[in-house]
């Protein structure tokens, strides 16, 4: 179902167009430029493919082109990630069975020399600073590096800047410098406005395929493949959602929380009529509230932990709207022939084991998983940055110090990619990384100003992490620092 009215958002939909869906040769309506997956969802189509070995139904799941659930055959080409592929008029979308069949190539021109690839003027160019990721950390890094006069290129695979900010309907916490009281969806615009008249270039719709030890970035923009070499790199690549395993967890109707936000707050398509939210951290609580705002019923928010993990104020909002929050509860299974029709939950004991006899079946048509995030460090690891596992920061991270520099000089990491936290801390980390990169590059601007801005940002970060909700990140970063110092002492 498409949202026509929303208390916070307005949906700027493109032109309404027709496309063809193979299942019964139906012609369906969608909006030009929205993802194929969103258009199918809006037409109440949940099964997108049949899995490779067991022929299980699969549908929309991650919404960011990171999994294999939504692969379909589009215009005869199999394995198209429909969650990130824009819909175009007249497209022919088919359910994919197994691994798909690649159409035979036209070999009539085989043997003749291949045409000379076109080279863009910026292909192969060297730039001072490349920032990967246009979320809160990346855009803040660009603003501060730019302010120091560093020529910067910011790269993001999405078509709009802002990262996860574009899906956040709630007002942010913090103080004025952290854009408190402003809705996440509006903060991205402000961060972009900060870049005006700075030497910063944005490359949207561009995926970094690889990052090599000599700081060469291999880029893919549409079907164009090119390279860029940077003197310094800031990785602001965010985090990925964790998965939870339970019976039928791959059934269409089980979604990641980020996917639900994308579907609902970007495309204006609701994920179902009645949803079970798994995870009572801030993301679970916030997305539950967003579901209510979109007119979707939330059956319950459950969490295996013995306490609510997120802010009380977020819990209070959904609680007073009548949504039960069940701690020490887990999901056992979802059932349904080819899409979720119900979910079974139960209590867990002190050892996280299901309590027999406490099972309960909830009639829901969607389950949303908000069970934590893992930092996206793969580019850092590809390049050879030293890695360590910090459960406080969300898993394996690239080792970095307070200036956000990794074990490779001139390569920095900031925001959720350096440890899962809040958007406010991501913005401040971005500033620090931008300044550190500028310093490393020997920016010719005012060094006193740089030092002042750095101290200001460091203080701000300390304040944001001072409370009980900042304790985990604070401890994680401290632990990493002490292990770094030990390593240094050991090698001297």
């Amino acid at each position: 179902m498409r949202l026509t009215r929303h208390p916070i958002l307005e949906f700027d939909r493109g032109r309404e167009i027709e496309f063809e869906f193979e299942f019964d040769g139906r012609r369906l309506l969608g909006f030009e430029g929205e993802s194929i997956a969103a258009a199918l969802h809006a037409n109440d189509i949940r099964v997108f493919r049949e899995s490779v070995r067991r022929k299980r139904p699969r549908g929309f799941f991650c919404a960011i082109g990171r999994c294999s659930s939504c692969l379909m055959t589009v215009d005869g080409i199999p394995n198209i990630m429909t969650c990130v592929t824009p819909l175009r008029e007249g497209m022919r979308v088919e359910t994919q069975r197994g691994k798909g069949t690649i159409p035979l190539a036209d070999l009539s021109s085989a043997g003749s020399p291949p045409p000379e690839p076109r080279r863009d003027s910026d292909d192969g160019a060297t730039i001072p600073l490349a920032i990967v990721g246009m979320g809160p950390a990346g855009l803040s890094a660009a603003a501060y590096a730019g302010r120091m006069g560093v020529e910067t290129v910011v790269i993001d695979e999405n078509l709009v800047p802002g990262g996860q900010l574009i899906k956040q309907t709630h007002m942010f916490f913090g103080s004025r410098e952290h854009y408190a009281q402003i809705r996440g969806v509006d903060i991205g615009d402000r961060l972009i406005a900060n870049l005006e008249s700075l030497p910063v270039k944005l490359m949207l719709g561009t995926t970094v395929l690889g990052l090599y030890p000599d700081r060469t970035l291999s880029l893919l923009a549409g079907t164009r493949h090119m390279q860029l070499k940077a003197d310094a790199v800031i990785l602001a690549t965010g985090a990925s959602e964790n998965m939870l395993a339970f019976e039928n967890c791959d059934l269409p109707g089980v979604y990641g929380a980020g996917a639900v936000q994308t579907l609902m707050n970007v495309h204006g398509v609701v994920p179902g009529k009645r949803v079970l939210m798994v995870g009572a951290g801030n993301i679970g609580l916030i997305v539950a509230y967003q579901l209510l705002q979109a007119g979707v019923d939330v059956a319950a928010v459950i969490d295996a932990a013995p306490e609510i993990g997120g802010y009380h104020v977020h819990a209070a909002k959904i609680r007073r709207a009548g949504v039960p929050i069940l701690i020490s509860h887990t999901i056992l299974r979802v059932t349904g022939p080819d899409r979720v029709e119900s979910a079974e939950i139960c209590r867990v004991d002190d050892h996280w084991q299901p309590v027999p006899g406490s099972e309960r079946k909830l009639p829901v048509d969607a389950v949303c998983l908000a069970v934590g995030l893992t930092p996206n460090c793969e580019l850092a690891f590809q390049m050879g940055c030293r890695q360590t596992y910090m459960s406080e920061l969300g898993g394996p991270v690239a080792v970095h110090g307070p200036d956000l520099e990794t074990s490779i000089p001139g390569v920095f990491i900031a925001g959720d990619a350096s440890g899962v936290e809040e958007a406010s801390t991501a913005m401040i980390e971005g500033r620090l990384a931008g300044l550190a990169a500028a310093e490393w590059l020997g920016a010719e601007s005012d060094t006193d100003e740089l030092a002042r801005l750095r101290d200001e940002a460091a203080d701000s970060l300390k304040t944001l992490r001072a409370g009980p909700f900042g304790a985990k990140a604070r401890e994680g970063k401290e632990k990493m620092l002490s292990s770094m110092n030990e390593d240094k002492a050991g090698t001297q």
Partner: protein
Amino acid sequence: MNHRRDGILRNEELKHHLPPLTRLSAGPVVVIECVEDIPCNPCVQACPRDAIVIEGDINNTPTVDYDKCNGCGLCISACPGLAIFVVDASRADGLGTVTLPYEYLPLPKKDEIVSAIDREGNIVSDALVTRVVDSKALDRTPLVSIEVPQQYVMIVRHFRCKDGRD
């Protein structure tokens, strides 16, 4: 801290965050249901009378000078946690009002009868909508004032339109 188990604030958890009874009966006054140390301070800046203070660290919870507060409600839509309410229990006719932030559709209209709801999501009474403000300055967090039996002003924190929607 029971609220960490079910998301509901009880009086014993709230008691250091409430206006004194004498102040409650003197006219409209703010109730800030913000009991956790989170880094946040827009409420301080929103108050034109400097009645809201966060001492020291931004992570501390706000304290209110209830003598300075006149219940104007400018802080309500400034709170990112939607945790600020203005209550009026000063009337002699046994009725009171609760002004609360309401980010749902449909927005009720003045003089509409709605169901008043407590912190647990239970309907406690009918309520009359006495004022709806949805100005640009409120940035999509409209304020709705509802009239409830006076004994419920510290209980009612939400409402539902009679057509069944939140």
